[in-house]
C-alpha cells in the first residue's frame, strides 16, 4: 500500500514521539544518533514516559508493542522501536 510510511519516515515520527513522551526538545531528539539509549542519560525515558510512548505508537500505527513484545526488547534505542514498527507494518502489508 502506498500510504504505509517507510522505515525512515517511521523513525522520524518515533523520534518526535520520544521527545514528546520524555519532555525533550524535538530538534534535540531529531539530531541524536539512532543508537542513543532510551533509558540512557541523553533521553532518560522513565517508566511513565515509556507508557506514553507506547500509547502514541499504538495510536499512530495500530502496533501494540506491549502485547507483541513481552520483555519489551524493542525498547532499547531510537532505532529499535522504529525497526519493530516498520517490520510490523511490512508484515501487515503482506510485503
Amino acid at each position: 500500500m502506498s500510504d504505509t510510511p517507510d522505515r525512515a519516515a517511521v523513525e522520524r515520527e518515533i523520534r518526535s514521539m520520544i521527545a514528546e513522551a520524555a519532555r525533550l526538545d524535538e530538534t534535540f531528539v531529531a539530531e541524536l544518533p539512532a543508537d542513543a539509549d532510551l533509558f540512557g542519560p541523553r533521553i532518560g525515558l522513565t517508566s511513565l514516559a515509556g507508557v506514553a510512548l507506547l500509547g502514541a505508537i499504538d495510536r499512530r500505527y495500530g502496533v501494540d508493542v506491549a502485547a507483541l513484545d513481552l520483555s519489551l526488547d524493542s525498547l532499547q534505542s531510537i532505532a529499535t522501536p522504529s525497526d519493530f514498527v516498520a517490520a510490523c507494518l511490512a508484515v501487515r502489508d503482506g510485503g
Partner: protein
Amino acid sequence: MSGTEGFDPDRVKCVVWDLDGTLWDEIAVESATDALPVPRARMLAAIDALAARGVLSSIASRSAPSVLGRLDGVPELRARFLAPQVSWQDKSESLRAIAKDLGIAVEALLLVDDSPYERAEVEALLPGVRTLDPAEVPALLAAFEGREETPESRARVHRYRTEETRRAEAERFQGTREEFLRWCGMRLTVGAATPEEIPRALELAARTHRLNSSGLTPDRLRELAGSAGHHLFTAAMTDRFGDYGVIGAALVDGTAPAVRSVPLLALSCRVAGRGAAAAFLFRLMERSRAAGAEEFRVTLRPTDANLEMRILLRQAGLRRTDDTTDAAVGAAAGAAGAVLGRSLHGDLPEPPAWLHVSDREDTEA
C-alpha cells in the same frame, strides 16, 4: 452500576459525595446567609469511618463554584475532602476531574447522590462507576467492616492532602521540573520490613495494579515471607511536604545460590513519576550484589494494567530468561508468567540525582 449488590470494596479508593440533599438537607446556594448548611451527622460519621479504612472522600456538587470558597472557610469540614468539584458541569465530568487529580482510575470512584438523574447520568457515561442513594450508605459501610485498619490506611487521607499541597507548590514553583524535584528533598529508605509494616506490605500487594509485577496474592505473600530464605523489603518515602510512609514492598527469595529472585515487586502509584519505583528496584539489585549474588530475577505476569512496571523492569536491564520452570513462576504467575533476569556484574543503573536513597538499619539482603 447502582446499589451495593456484588460490591467489591477493594475496587473503591474514593467515595464522592453530593452536597445538597446528600451531605446536608438544604440547598447551599439558596441559604440567606453565607453560612453553609449543617452536614448530617451520620454522613460525617460515614466519611470518618471510611477514612479509617483508607477510603478517601471527595465532593461533586452541581452548584455555584462560590460554595467551594465557603467550604474553605470551615477547615474541619474541608479537611475531610480531596479534590472537591463544585461547578455547573455534569457529574460525570466532575468525577473524571477528581480521578485525574487524585491519580486514580475513574472506576475507583463511587458516587453517593440523592438525585436519580445525577446517578443515571454517571452510570450512563461512566459505566464502571458505582452509584448509591444516601439511604444505602449503611450497606456501603458494612461492606468495609471486614477490612483491616492499618496505620497506613488511617493516614491515607492525610497523605493525599500532603500530595495536594505538593502539587500546588509545583504549580507555583519558578524553575525547571528537575530543580523542583531537587528542592522537594525526596528521601527513600529501603530495608527489611518491620512487623508493623507487614499489613501495609500485604495491602500494597492487594491494592496496586500499575506497579505490580506478578499479582502475587496477599495470602501467598504472607506465607512466602515467613518461609526460609525469603525476605520482605519495604521502601518508605519522605519529602519537604511530609511523610508518605511505606510506598513499596518486595519479596526477595535468596534460596538459590548466587541468585536473588523477586516473586513480587509492588509500589503505590501515589508517588509515580518521581523515580521512587526505579530507585527501590535499583537498590534491591545493589543489595543483592553486596550479599554475594551474581544474578537478579523478577517474576513478571503481564496484565492490562502493569505496563509501567514492565517498562521499569526493562529500564533496569531485566530481560527474558529461558528459565520458565523456576518454582516462583509456577507459584506466583501460572502459565502466563515469565522470569526476567540480568547479571549483577558490571554497572548497575542509578536513581535520579534528586532522589536521596539510603538503607535502613539492617544488614540482610
